[in-house]
Protein backbone atom coordinates (compact mmCIF):
# COMPACT_ATOMS: atom_id res chain seq x y z
CA UNK A 1 0.00 0.00 0.00
CA UNK A 2 2.82 2.41 -0.77
CA UNK A 3 1.92 5.78 -2.17
CA UNK A 4 4.43 8.00 -3.90
CA UNK A 5 2.23 11.00 -4.65
CA UNK A 6 2.60 14.19 -2.57
CA UNK A 7 1.27 13.91 0.98
CA UNK A 8 -1.88 15.66 2.11
CA UNK A 9 -0.97 18.16 4.78
CA UNK A 10 -3.15 17.36 7.73
CA UNK A 11 -6.65 17.56 6.28
CA UNK A 12 -9.03 16.00 8.80
CA UNK A 13 -11.15 13.03 7.80
CA UNK A 14 -13.87 11.40 9.88
CA UNK A 15 -14.40 7.71 9.06
CA UNK A 16 -17.84 6.44 10.11
CA UNK A 17 -18.06 2.66 9.81
CA UNK A 18 -19.09 -0.12 12.19
CA UNK A 19 -16.46 -2.53 10.85
CA UNK A 20 -13.38 -2.51 13.06
CA UNK A 21 -11.09 -3.80 10.30
CA UNK A 22 -12.53 -1.37 7.78
CA UNK A 23 -11.87 1.59 10.07
CA UNK A 24 -8.31 0.43 10.66
CA UNK A 25 -7.80 0.04 6.90
CA UNK A 26 -9.01 3.57 6.15
CA UNK A 27 -6.86 4.94 8.96
CA UNK A 28 -3.75 3.09 7.78
CA UNK A 29 -4.16 4.15 4.15
CA UNK A 30 -5.13 7.75 4.82
CA UNK A 31 -2.59 8.46 7.57
CA UNK A 32 0.15 7.10 5.29
CA UNK A 33 -0.97 9.73 2.78
CA UNK A 34 -0.72 12.51 5.37
CA UNK A 35 -4.33 12.87 6.47
CA UNK A 36 -5.46 13.10 10.07
CA UNK A 37 -8.11 10.44 10.69
CA UNK A 38 -10.74 10.12 13.38
CA UNK A 39 -13.27 7.33 13.73
CA UNK A 40 -16.90 6.78 14.66
CA UNK A 41 -18.47 3.34 15.00
CA UNK A 42 -22.05 4.17 14.02
CA UNK A 43 -24.21 6.94 12.58
CA UNK A 44 -25.14 8.50 15.90
CA UNK A 45 -21.53 8.78 17.04
CA UNK A 46 -20.60 10.05 13.57
CA UNK A 47 -23.24 12.77 13.72
CA UNK A 48 -22.14 13.88 17.20
CA UNK A 49 -18.50 14.10 16.13
CA UNK A 50 -19.33 15.87 12.85
CA UNK A 51 -21.31 18.52 14.75
CA UNK A 52 -18.75 18.94 17.53
CA UNK A 53 -15.58 19.16 15.46
CA UNK A 54 -14.41 20.44 12.09
CA UNK A 55 -13.67 17.95 9.31
CA UNK A 56 -12.61 18.32 5.70
CA UNK A 57 -14.19 15.04 4.57
CA UNK A 58 -16.57 12.40 5.89
CA UNK A 59 -16.31 8.77 4.78
CA UNK A 60 -19.64 7.14 5.53
CA UNK A 61 -20.64 3.48 5.50
CA UNK A 62 -24.28 2.82 4.58
CA UNK A 63 -25.23 -0.17 6.69
CA UNK A 64 -24.53 0.75 10.30
CA UNK A 65 -26.28 0.23 13.63
CA UNK A 66 -28.19 3.00 15.42
CA UNK A 67 -28.28 5.29 12.36
CA UNK A 68 -27.65 4.21 8.76
CA UNK A 69 -25.51 6.22 6.37
CA UNK A 70 -28.42 7.70 4.42
CA UNK A 71 -30.07 8.99 7.60
CA UNK A 72 -26.76 10.34 8.84
CA UNK A 73 -26.18 12.27 5.62
CA UNK A 74 -29.69 13.72 5.69
CA UNK A 75 -29.12 14.85 9.29
CA UNK A 76 -25.77 16.43 8.39
CA UNK A 77 -27.19 18.21 5.33
CA UNK A 78 -29.94 19.74 7.46
CA UNK A 79 -27.46 21.12 10.01
CA UNK A 80 -26.40 24.59 8.84
CA UNK A 81 -22.94 24.54 10.40
CA UNK A 82 -21.79 21.33 8.72
CA UNK A 83 -24.04 20.94 5.70
CA UNK A 84 -21.25 21.73 3.23
CA UNK A 85 -18.70 19.19 4.48
CA UNK A 86 -17.97 16.83 1.57
CA UNK A 87 -19.03 13.23 2.12
CA UNK A 88 -18.19 9.96 0.40
CA UNK A 89 -20.43 6.96 0.98
CA UNK A 90 -18.95 3.49 0.82
CA UNK A 91 -21.14 0.46 0.41
CA UNK A 92 -21.23 -3.14 -0.74
CA UNK A 93 -24.37 -2.30 -2.68
CA UNK A 94 -23.43 -1.68 -6.28
CA UNK A 95 -26.84 -1.09 -7.88
CA UNK A 96 -27.71 2.21 -9.59
CA UNK A 97 -30.56 2.74 -7.12
CA UNK A 98 -28.12 2.56 -4.23
CA UNK A 99 -25.95 5.31 -5.67
CA UNK A 100 -29.00 7.44 -6.45
CA UNK A 101 -30.23 7.02 -2.89
CA UNK A 102 -26.83 8.08 -1.57
CA UNK A 103 -26.73 11.20 -3.74
CA UNK A 104 -30.30 12.09 -2.81
CA UNK A 105 -29.31 11.81 0.85
CA UNK A 106 -26.45 14.26 0.37
CA UNK A 107 -23.41 12.23 -0.67
CA UNK A 108 -20.90 13.90 -2.98
CA UNK A 109 -19.38 10.62 -4.13
CA UNK A 110 -20.24 6.94 -3.96
CA UNK A 111 -17.66 4.17 -3.66
CA UNK A 112 -18.33 0.45 -3.85
CA UNK A 113 -16.36 -1.91 -1.58
CA UNK A 114 -13.70 -3.16 -1.67
CA UNK A 115 -11.93 0.17 -2.05
CA UNK A 116 -8.39 0.19 -3.45
CA UNK A 117 -5.91 2.31 -1.45
CA UNK A 118 -4.96 4.49 -4.39
CA UNK A 119 -8.59 5.25 -5.24
CA UNK A 120 -9.22 6.17 -1.62
CA UNK A 121 -6.27 8.53 -1.27
CA UNK A 122 -6.80 10.18 -4.64
CA UNK A 123 -10.45 10.80 -3.87
CA UNK A 124 -9.55 12.11 -0.41
CA UNK A 125 -7.03 14.54 -1.92
CA UNK A 126 -9.58 15.69 -4.46
CA UNK A 127 -12.37 16.22 -1.94
CA UNK A 128 -10.57 17.14 1.28
CA UNK A 129 -7.47 18.76 -0.17
CA UNK A 130 -4.80 19.60 2.35
CA UNK A 131 -4.13 22.26 4.93
CA UNK A 132 -0.87 23.98 4.14
Amino acid sequence: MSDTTPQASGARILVIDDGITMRLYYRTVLEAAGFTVEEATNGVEGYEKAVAQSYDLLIVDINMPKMDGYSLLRAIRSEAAIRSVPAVTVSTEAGPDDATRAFQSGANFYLVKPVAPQALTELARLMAGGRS
Partner: protein
Amino acid sequence: MALLRAKPSAPPESLPAAPGDDRASLLANLHSPEPAVRRGAARALTSHPEAAMALCDRLDIETSPSVRAVLFTVLIRQESPAVVARLLVHLRSDDAALRNGTIEALQEMRGTVTPHVRDLLDDPDSDVRIFAVNILGALCDPETPALLVDVLRHEPHVNVCAAAVDALAEVGTPDAIEALEALRTRFGDEPFLTFAIDTTIRRIRGG
Protein backbone atom coordinates in the same frame (compact mmCIF):
# COMPACT_ATOMS: atom_id res chain seq x y z
CA MET B 1 -61.35 -1.78 -9.54
CA ALA B 2 -61.92 0.01 -6.25
CA LEU B 3 -59.18 -0.12 -3.69
CA LEU B 4 -60.31 -1.02 -0.22
CA ARG B 5 -58.30 0.32 2.68
CA ALA B 6 -58.51 -1.39 6.05
CA LYS B 7 -59.93 0.72 8.83
CA PRO B 8 -57.00 2.04 10.87
CA SER B 9 -58.61 1.03 14.12
CA ALA B 10 -59.33 -2.57 13.11
CA PRO B 11 -57.32 -5.18 14.98
CA PRO B 12 -55.03 -7.25 12.74
CA GLU B 13 -56.56 -10.50 11.55
CA SER B 14 -53.60 -12.49 12.79
CA LEU B 15 -54.75 -12.07 16.39
CA PRO B 16 -58.47 -12.13 17.23
CA ALA B 17 -59.33 -9.91 20.15
CA ALA B 18 -60.17 -11.76 23.32
CA PRO B 19 -63.21 -10.54 25.23
CA GLY B 20 -62.71 -9.22 28.70
CA ASP B 21 -59.17 -7.89 28.48
CA ASP B 22 -57.57 -4.73 27.12
CA ARG B 23 -55.71 -6.52 24.37
CA ALA B 24 -58.27 -5.51 21.77
CA SER B 25 -57.77 -1.82 22.45
CA LEU B 26 -54.01 -2.19 22.46
CA LEU B 27 -54.14 -3.95 19.09
CA ALA B 28 -56.38 -1.22 17.74
CA ASN B 29 -54.02 1.43 19.07
CA LEU B 30 -51.14 -0.18 17.16
CA HIS B 31 -52.82 1.33 14.10
CA SER B 32 -53.55 4.76 15.57
CA PRO B 33 -52.56 7.76 13.40
CA GLU B 34 -50.61 9.08 16.41
CA PRO B 35 -47.06 7.67 16.76
CA ALA B 36 -47.15 8.19 20.54
CA VAL B 37 -50.28 6.02 20.80
CA ARG B 38 -48.75 3.31 18.60
CA ARG B 39 -45.58 3.44 20.66
CA GLY B 40 -47.50 3.08 23.91
CA ALA B 41 -49.59 0.21 22.56
CA ALA B 42 -46.52 -1.65 21.34
CA ARG B 43 -44.84 -1.21 24.70
CA ALA B 44 -47.92 -2.40 26.57
CA LEU B 45 -48.12 -5.51 24.39
CA THR B 46 -44.77 -6.66 25.78
CA SER B 47 -46.72 -8.74 28.29
CA HIS B 48 -48.79 -10.34 25.51
CA PRO B 49 -46.47 -12.75 23.70
CA GLU B 50 -49.42 -13.96 21.66
CA ALA B 51 -49.44 -10.50 20.05
CA ALA B 52 -46.05 -11.02 18.40
CA MET B 53 -47.46 -11.52 14.90
CA ALA B 54 -49.60 -8.39 15.25
CA LEU B 55 -46.45 -6.47 16.19
CA CYS B 56 -44.71 -7.95 13.14
CA ASP B 57 -47.66 -6.86 10.99
CA ARG B 58 -47.26 -3.33 12.32
CA LEU B 59 -43.50 -3.35 11.74
CA ASP B 60 -44.13 -4.23 8.09
CA ILE B 61 -45.82 -0.86 7.54
CA GLU B 62 -44.48 1.33 10.34
CA THR B 63 -42.55 4.42 9.22
CA SER B 64 -41.94 6.26 12.50
CA PRO B 65 -38.38 5.57 13.75
CA SER B 66 -39.42 5.84 17.40
CA VAL B 67 -42.32 3.38 17.01
CA ARG B 68 -40.07 1.01 15.07
CA ALA B 69 -37.55 1.14 17.89
CA VAL B 70 -40.18 0.07 20.42
CA LEU B 71 -41.50 -2.65 18.10
CA PHE B 72 -37.99 -4.07 17.76
CA THR B 73 -37.44 -3.95 21.52
CA VAL B 74 -40.71 -5.79 22.22
CA LEU B 75 -40.10 -8.35 19.49
CA ILE B 76 -36.66 -9.11 20.92
CA ARG B 77 -38.38 -9.94 24.21
CA GLN B 78 -40.95 -12.06 22.39
CA GLU B 79 -38.28 -13.98 20.48
CA SER B 80 -39.50 -17.12 18.74
CA PRO B 81 -38.78 -18.90 15.46
CA ALA B 82 -41.91 -17.29 14.00
CA VAL B 83 -40.73 -13.79 14.96
CA VAL B 84 -37.27 -14.45 13.54
CA ALA B 85 -38.80 -15.66 10.26
CA ARG B 86 -40.91 -12.49 9.99
CA LEU B 87 -37.95 -10.22 10.73
CA LEU B 88 -35.66 -11.89 8.20
CA VAL B 89 -37.89 -10.60 5.40
CA HIS B 90 -36.71 -7.06 6.18
CA LEU B 91 -33.10 -7.91 5.35
CA ARG B 92 -34.22 -7.46 1.72
CA SER B 93 -35.85 -4.10 2.36
CA ASP B 94 -34.75 -1.01 0.43
CA ASP B 95 -35.25 0.93 3.67
CA ALA B 96 -31.77 0.98 5.21
CA ALA B 97 -33.05 1.99 8.65
CA LEU B 98 -35.50 -0.93 8.73
CA ARG B 99 -32.83 -3.31 7.46
CA ASN B 100 -30.27 -2.21 10.02
CA GLY B 101 -32.83 -2.23 12.84
CA THR B 102 -33.64 -5.80 11.87
CA ILE B 103 -29.98 -6.78 11.95
CA GLU B 104 -29.56 -5.25 15.40
CA ALA B 105 -32.69 -7.00 16.69
CA LEU B 106 -31.62 -10.39 15.34
CA GLN B 107 -28.18 -9.91 16.90
CA GLU B 108 -29.95 -9.58 20.26
CA MET B 109 -32.02 -12.74 19.77
CA ARG B 110 -29.46 -15.28 20.76
CA GLY B 111 -31.59 -18.37 21.22
CA THR B 112 -33.34 -19.08 17.94
CA VAL B 113 -31.54 -17.14 15.22
CA THR B 114 -28.59 -19.25 14.10
CA PRO B 115 -30.49 -21.97 12.17
CA HIS B 116 -32.44 -19.35 10.19
CA VAL B 117 -29.39 -17.21 9.46
CA ARG B 118 -27.30 -20.22 8.52
CA ASP B 119 -29.73 -20.83 5.65
CA LEU B 120 -29.18 -17.27 4.43
CA LEU B 121 -25.48 -17.94 3.89
CA ASP B 122 -26.59 -19.61 0.62
CA ASP B 123 -28.87 -16.77 -0.44
CA PRO B 124 -28.44 -15.65 -4.07
CA ASP B 125 -28.18 -12.00 -2.96
CA SER B 126 -24.63 -11.22 -1.77
CA ASP B 127 -25.87 -8.36 0.42
CA VAL B 128 -28.19 -10.73 2.28
CA ARG B 129 -25.23 -13.07 2.78
CA ILE B 130 -23.23 -10.14 4.19
CA PHE B 131 -26.05 -9.33 6.62
CA ALA B 132 -26.20 -13.01 7.63
CA VAL B 133 -22.48 -12.96 8.38
CA ASN B 134 -22.85 -9.71 10.35
CA ILE B 135 -25.62 -11.26 12.45
CA LEU B 136 -23.71 -14.49 13.02
CA GLY B 137 -20.62 -12.58 14.08
CA ALA B 138 -22.53 -10.87 16.87
CA LEU B 139 -24.22 -14.01 18.22
CA CYS B 140 -22.48 -15.78 21.06
CA ASP B 141 -23.19 -19.11 19.42
CA PRO B 142 -20.55 -21.85 19.65
CA GLU B 143 -21.34 -22.68 16.01
CA THR B 144 -20.38 -19.22 14.75
CA PRO B 145 -16.59 -19.59 14.23
CA ALA B 146 -17.02 -22.81 12.23
CA LEU B 147 -19.77 -21.27 10.09
CA LEU B 148 -17.57 -18.26 9.36
CA VAL B 149 -14.65 -20.48 8.42
CA ASP B 150 -16.97 -22.32 6.06
CA VAL B 151 -17.81 -18.97 4.45
CA LEU B 152 -14.08 -18.32 3.91
CA ARG B 153 -13.70 -21.67 2.20
CA HIS B 154 -16.69 -21.57 -0.14
CA GLU B 155 -17.95 -18.01 -0.59
CA PRO B 156 -17.21 -16.57 -4.07
CA HIS B 157 -17.99 -12.88 -3.34
CA VAL B 158 -15.13 -10.78 -1.98
CA ASN B 159 -17.33 -8.56 0.20
CA VAL B 160 -19.01 -11.52 1.90
CA CYS B 161 -15.57 -12.98 2.61
CA ALA B 162 -14.46 -9.58 3.94
CA ALA B 163 -17.44 -9.53 6.31
CA ALA B 164 -16.52 -13.02 7.55
CA VAL B 165 -12.89 -12.01 8.06
CA ASP B 166 -14.03 -8.95 10.01
CA ALA B 167 -16.31 -11.09 12.19
CA LEU B 168 -13.51 -13.57 12.84
CA ALA B 169 -11.39 -10.70 14.14
CA GLU B 170 -13.84 -10.68 17.08
CA VAL B 171 -14.76 -14.37 17.50
CA GLY B 172 -12.08 -16.29 15.60
CA THR B 173 -9.94 -19.02 17.12
CA PRO B 174 -6.59 -20.42 15.90
CA ASP B 175 -8.62 -23.01 13.95
CA ALA B 176 -9.54 -20.24 11.50
CA ILE B 177 -5.98 -19.33 10.53
CA GLU B 178 -5.55 -22.01 7.87
CA ALA B 179 -8.74 -20.90 6.10
CA LEU B 180 -7.65 -17.25 6.37
CA GLU B 181 -4.33 -18.07 4.73
CA ALA B 182 -6.12 -19.99 1.97
CA LEU B 183 -8.38 -16.98 1.39
CA ARG B 184 -5.31 -14.78 0.96
CA THR B 185 -4.23 -17.07 -1.87
CA ARG B 186 -7.67 -16.86 -3.47
CA PHE B 187 -7.98 -13.06 -3.25
CA GLY B 188 -4.33 -12.00 -3.20
CA ASP B 189 -4.98 -9.08 -5.55
CA GLU B 190 -7.49 -7.40 -3.22
CA PRO B 191 -5.56 -5.01 -0.94
CA PHE B 192 -8.35 -4.59 1.58
CA LEU B 193 -8.91 -8.30 2.00
CA THR B 194 -5.17 -8.94 2.40
CA PHE B 195 -5.06 -6.19 5.02
CA ALA B 196 -8.11 -7.61 6.82
CA ILE B 197 -6.67 -11.15 6.81
CA ASP B 198 -3.37 -9.94 8.27
CA THR B 199 -5.20 -7.93 10.94
CA THR B 200 -7.48 -10.81 11.89
CA ILE B 201 -4.67 -13.36 12.11
CA ARG B 202 -2.72 -10.94 14.29
CA ARG B 203 -5.74 -10.50 16.59
CA ILE B 204 -6.36 -14.25 16.82
CA ARG B 205 -2.72 -14.76 17.76
CA GLY B 206 -3.10 -12.06 20.38
CA GLY B 207 -0.89 -9.50 18.67
